């Protein structure tokens, strides 16, 4: 009996659990100004859903500069060192073989290959870094369960404020979104 009761309570809490609130905006400009208000209200765990990168929205959201370039740089340095080391080791150490009277190793002839590997490794680091920082690939996200999310990939703009944000308060957050011009404010299932 008591077990059954506990289960019921758990289910009740789970049903009450929300991922957060989602509000709809019709134009990029509405979204931009609303984002500024949410930022100024001090929220941390929130996001904008846009069909394309809206120019200046990063600033309106108070996002810091992406760290992807640092990952790219690390990749590029690794690529260059890999190229130089590979050519030096294969040509001078592992199997020294004089061809055309040229030196066994020289950074001059090793440069084109090292240059290409710099670019190759940078590309992998950039894309890998972007995906890791973004937490992709991701199988499921509560936002994707929202019934109108398809329009967020098309021509509509959303702001999602997550329930895990310390400032999140069902009524106050909803009021904020309404004040900022958000339409159709809905709770997202977790």
């Amino acid at each position, binding site marked *: 009996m008591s077990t059954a009761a506990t289960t019921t309570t758990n289910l009740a809490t789970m049903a009450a659990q929300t991922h957060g609130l989602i509000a709809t905006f019709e134009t*990029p*400009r509405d*979204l*931009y100004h609303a984002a500024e208000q949410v930022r100024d209200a001090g929220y941390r765990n929130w*996001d*904008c*859903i*846009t*069909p*394309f*990168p*809206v*120019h*200046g*929205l990063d600033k309106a*959201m108070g*996002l810091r500069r*992406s*760290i*992807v*370039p640092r990952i*790219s740089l690390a990749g*590029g340095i690794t690529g260059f060192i890999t190229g130089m080391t*590979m*050519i030096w080791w*294969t*040509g001078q150490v*592992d*199997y020294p*073989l004089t*061809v*055309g009277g*040229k030196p066994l190793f020289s950074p001059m*002839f*090793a440069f*084109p*290959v090292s*240059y*290409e590997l710099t*670019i*190759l490794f*940078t*590309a*992998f680091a*950039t*894309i890998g*870094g*972007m995906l890791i*920082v*973004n937490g*992709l*690939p*991701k199988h499921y996200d509560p*936002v994707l369960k929202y019934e109108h*999310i*398809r329009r*967020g*990939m*098309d*021509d509509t703009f959303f702001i999602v404020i997550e329930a895990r944000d310390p400032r999140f308060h069902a009524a106050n957050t909803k009021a904020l979104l309404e004040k900022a011009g958000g339409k159709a404010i809905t709770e997202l299932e977790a």
Partner: protein
Amino acid sequence: MAHVEHAASAPAILQEVKPAVLPRAVLVGHGRSFSWITDKICGIIEGKTPAWWWWCFIVACFVASFTVAGLVYLVATGVGVWGHANPVNWAWDIVNFVFWIGIGHAGTLISAILCLLRQKWRTSINRAAEAMTIFAVVCAAIFPVFHVGRIWYAWYLFPIPNSNIIWQNFRSPLEWDVFAVSTYGTVSVLFWYVGLLPDLAVLRDRFYAAGNKFRSFLYGLFALGWRGSNRHWSNYEMAYIILAGISTPLVLSVHTIVSFDFAVSLLPGWHTTIFPPYFVAGAIFSGFGMVLTLMLPLRAVYGLEDLITQYHIDCMCKITLATGTIVGYAYSMEFFIAWYGANPYEGFAFINRAFGHYAWAYWIMITCNVITPQFFWFKSVRNNTALVWVLSIFVNVGMWFERFVIIVTSLARDFLPSSWGYYSPSIVEIFTFFGTFGVFSVLFLLFIRFLPVMPMAELKAVTPQADVHGGHDHH
């Protein structure tokens, strides 16, 4: 706010002499809405396969079968089935390789260099141009891989430990080329895929809403769970600009290294320092020729006139004109240096090119590459889409002949008259090359059928209604 402060601190004179407002070219015609763009581009994929697509596809498959048959015959018999013989040991294989690689370069130029230069008109053509790059690299790769003869040893090109224990000769430009072309192919695919990511998410959600769970699953698999989050866009845009930043030196280096295959040798006609810039300009020239050849029919059959506007065609014609003129300059400069360098072998190589046994090829090249683009000076020509298309074909033909002239004339008449020869392609070579147009077309047709031909997210970002600051320029 920033604008107000700036205006206040600026000298008073600026208030009086305001710079003229330059009219901005309309990138998306008829003031189309965001959802119009989505519907238009997704509609191509979601609609019924048009009959013309099937006809083209069948013809393309048939043409591609020539390459397959040619290669099977080559592998089964030996590389001797091609017309190569002393002294011309490089011929159509390398001509075709350089030709196809060059075609690809316009795709990277459009996607990377024009992105860095913030040329927003590139958005509508960049996806198809990048696809063209990848398919051109596929066609290009066929030739060097198969010209080694014993294809099953092609992996010797890469530094993989093998039973002979020795390593590749990294002093050779041919080995540099292996790295340049394979890096180019890989980075082009990655760049293309990153660009596709948000659009695949659009298709995922649209197919889901339409009840097509299977296709929704497939697009969803490759969309990696993209959800249009601005926190993601922020990193995404950074990654995209970095990829553009590294693709720019990459595309320049690839054709530079391809030209090293020739320039680093000692053969008269090849051994010149002008080759790297001249090859790069030629590659971009031929690539834009191919972009026009592909995009103009695509625009007509799918009614994409609002997305590929007359302004786009104008821009592409002008780049073709500029690079074609650079190529023409390089031709004359080669002659000048051959005379000025006072090397009799070099001088002979160039006189022989223009007036020797291969003079017919040389003059086809000059006609197509130097004279054809000059028509693009005229607005009436640029406005005549059919004529632009015809001229773009001439550019393609001319650039193929350029590589033929460089490679074959130099080899056929080298230092010793006793070893001189005349090269003609065998029927196998001709069929193999002819078939690559089929291979390219098959891949391109599959692309336009199953993937969005234009980057929807980028197109939406260049529409006037995407500007949150109300139209004035704020860069």
